[in-house]
């Protein structure tokens, strides 16, 4: 751990921090990722390294260039409004971590008043 701590400190000097630890915590929450304190340090370092690298994009002026979202720029195909899938509830429930009476179980989400 000490060695790892030293390595992280060394890399820290080179990195321009785009995201501070607090912001990393906020994004992790938005992404619904539980991150422990040990992970938080290396994640902060790595994420900033990557963002610094990504910022190379700013070297080129892209003013007025139409964005390309999809390589083939195809139109979304429409299908006929017909039922093609059958109900496979039992099959799909087989992979559920918790289920009962044909339903997926989760912790209680509605509080009693």
């Amino acid at each position, binding site marked *: 751990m000490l060695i790892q701590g030293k*390595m992280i400190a060394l890399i820290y000097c080179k990195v321009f921090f785009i995201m501070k630890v607090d912001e990393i915590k906020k994004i992790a929450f938005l992404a619904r990722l539980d991150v422990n304190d040990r992970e938080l340090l290396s994640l902060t370092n790595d994420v900033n390294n990557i963002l610094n690298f990504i*910022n190379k994009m700013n070297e080129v002026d892209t003013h007025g260039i139409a964005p390309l979202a999809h390589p083939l720029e195809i139109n979304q195909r429409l299908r006929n409004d017909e039922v093609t899938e059958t109900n496979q509830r039992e099959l799909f429930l087989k992979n559920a971590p918790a289920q009962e009476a044909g339903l997926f179980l989760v912790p209680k989400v509605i509080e009693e008043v």
Partner: protein
Amino acid sequence: MYHKTVSELSKALANKAISSVELTKLYLERIKQYNPLLNAYITLTEELALAQAKQADQARAQGQATLLTGVPIAHKDIFCTEGIKTSCASKMLDNFIAPYESTLTAKIKQAGMVLLGKTNMDEFAMGSSNENSYYGACKNPWDIERVPGGSSGGSAVAVAARLAPAATGTDTGGSLRQPGALTGTTGLKPTYGRISRYGMIAFASSLDQGGILTYTAEDAALLLETIAGFDPKDSTSAVEPVPSYSKNLNDSLKGVRIGLPKEYFTSQLDTTIGTTIHTAAKELEKLGANLHEISLPNMGLSVPAYYVIALAECSSNLARYDGVRYGYRCQDPKDLLDLYMRSRGEGLGAEVKRRIMIGTYTLSAGYYDAYYLKAQQIRRLIQEDFIKAFKEVDIILGPTSPTTAFKINEKVDDPVAMYLADIYTVAINLAGLPGISIPAGFSNGLPIGMQLIGNYFAEAKLLNVSHQYQQQTDWHRQMPSQFN
């Protein structure tokens, strides 16, 4: 027998030199012997393989065989295979039994091929070394202290060490071509939309494309004919007829225009690899091709733009792993939020989490224009570079990887260094073009891959040029002596 290509095995089965059951047993034996060392397979489907082989032999006896009936194959563990564990090399899906079959694997099954097992990979196809697997790193058979590349590392190793005559894979930014290069195998990534993505676990949907790893371009042609084609179950599947790729393999290369991008041959490229690629280009020139220097001026921006787009799409795609309907769920969640947070926090690996974080950040309010939109504009510039180049040439030629196979653990602490392993491969995914990596030589006993890039749906030309090169060279016939 394990030296034989798919095409040769097809002939051996047809003239009864061997049965599918015998052939399948041979590969299963080799897997049991070498997999503990190489870690190429996550799941071995022995019982199924033997049953399918028996069925294949019966079909052949009844005169109902296709060219591929009875030939074994391995699938990357990213393809859903009904009733078989499909993990994507993640703790998240360690207990996931696919309830349906992907279109690609269904077509292979339909052709009568025998499934040996599911291969190792980087978790959710995120990585360039196969070190990001919940099941441990996969080893390069040319030097087991080195990585095989990724993310289709297990498939590449299975083919390179002859633990399967062919294997499927996927390529989002080089995941078939780079492992192909690092293991001395042939890795084909077709045009975006050429092969259905139905049942192929999504990483970045505008970039993902299925493909194959084989010994030869001839085998790649044979397999592509089987797995390509329109699929109503994939809304981005291309409505393009599938040509007979095998038919054009022997076309003359006379007059074929091959472009070498000057941006590919810089100081970032290992000098031995540079020399090897130039030698390979000269070989094609001897066969009648004309070499041209071309320019792809925005190539330097492809890796940053790729990682913005791929990671944004990944953060969206991986939102589905919530611990509710399938996959890993944390112990004793105290409420629904805790269930989401800990199931994802504990079930996903470090690199996957990094990528989801970046993607979530670049898509969040206030940053979208600076990152995602900017990257899409660069994507347009890169595509235009290629469109312009393909007005002058038929094929673009260059290296697949800037280095040969690197050491295990060499780049794990530096994600950016790992991303730069993809400098020659990501641009073609951004543009949606087809590409292939074929063996072109060695440096210090490690394979070097040459990358050929084609115009949209020009797989036949790519395979033709690759096949002609492989008629003149035997790099693709070399195999690591330890496994011979």
